């Protein structure tokens, strides 16, 4: 028996309404990214749709990077959190199009990244900042603007490694894609 089955009455499916959808969103606000545990899946902007279909809740997510090993973990975490909140047999599916962009990270997500010591993405992905070179990144520790890129990649595919020339601390930068 799974967690949600003990406290739910919709095992056979029922019709959902706006209250259910709102409640589901507030549950998703608490599902954190496993590698950056201060930002939720809502902060990252990877939840593309929450709807009621065939008597159950249906959540659509998009992966951040094609090979991100956290994708499956996140889908499981979402399912478990929703079950824990009483939604029986929630369905989680993946959608590739439109492709995820760091522009979808919320303002709250950006603040949380900074407080955690990760510089949030600079600029918009539309401006092809990918090709045109390295962005001016502000140090999340001291706020200094004098920083340099140490490596195109940091501890995960979504980050690059930087160093602050003022406080000399290295830090991760969330790449703009």
């Amino acid at each position: 028996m799974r967690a949600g089955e003990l406290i739910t009455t919709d095992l056979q499916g029922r019709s959902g309404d706006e209250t259910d959808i709102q409640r589901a969103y507030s549950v998703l606000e608490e599902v954190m990214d496993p590698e950056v545990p201060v930002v939720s899946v809502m902060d990252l902007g990877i939840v593309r749709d929450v709807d009621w279909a065939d008597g159950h809740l249906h959540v659509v997510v998009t992966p951040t990077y094609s090979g991100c090993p956290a994708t499956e973990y996140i889908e499981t975490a979402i399912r478990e959190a929703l079950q824990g909140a009483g939604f029986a047999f929630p369905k989680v599916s993946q959608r590739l199009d439109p492709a995820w962009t760091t522009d979808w990270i919320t303002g709250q997500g950006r603040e949380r990244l900074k407080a955690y010591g990760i510089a949030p993405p600079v600029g918009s992905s539309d401006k092809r900042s990918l090709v045109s070179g390295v962005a001016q990144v502000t140090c999340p520790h001291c706020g200094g603007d004098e920083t340099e890129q140490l490596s195109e990649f940091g501890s995960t595919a979504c980050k690059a490694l930087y160093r602050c020339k003022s406080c000399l601390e290295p830090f991760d930068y969330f790449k703009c894609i």
Partner: protein
Amino acid sequence: MTKYDDLTEFLLRLGDSALVHAQRLCEWTGRAPALEEEMGMMNVGLDLVGQARNWYEYAAERIGDGTDADTLAFRRDERAFRNLLLVEQPNGDFAVTMTKQFFYDAWQYHLLTALQHSGDERIAAIATKSLKEVTYHLRRSSQWIERLGDGTDESHQRMEKAIDTVWRFTFEMVEANDSESALASSGVIPSLADLPEQWLATVNDVFRNATLTVPDAPSTFYLSARTGMHTEHLGILLAEMQFLQRAYPDASW
């Protein structure tokens, strides 16, 4: 030898190239010249494994006999692989690895840019997603080619040697292909007729900044990924990559 329809063969060409290249990158684990570069190569490899999986899942659905992405990766023999000959070549030194990476990135970049506008929506979606990652890969490998080519005498020499070693395998990137033309005529993918020229233009630009010379056009020879006629290196790579699933079929953890 099973030969699938044009579209499935095309999907395997994309998926196999990404997977085999990623497998080669993994060989640098614990041996890269610097920790930052090791992380860079592993992250590029990770992106490519994800891309391979997306292409494989589509190919597997088309094959439709219960085949899945894992079967395609781990249960096919060398002759069934459709990856570019370039990506199966041994890593050599860092110059050879970066030269392979750059040639492959430039090919992927222009190919995926075109495929974003495919009539087939699934191909367009995977291409759009992958291109974001590949743009970043190309920026990194171009910078390395410039740094090594325009670096010290030794790094320049090693780059020249690396180009001599792998250049002949690039003929596959600049040859026209009937089955791809057929896919384009039926509107599944856009025409790829400009791809060879675009690829060569990128190579020319980067090599100029790197003070390197672009060799004469490579000539076609009897090996070809499209027919599964590979160099001797692929079999050995697969023997290692597929060992677990071959020795313990359906093993999981």
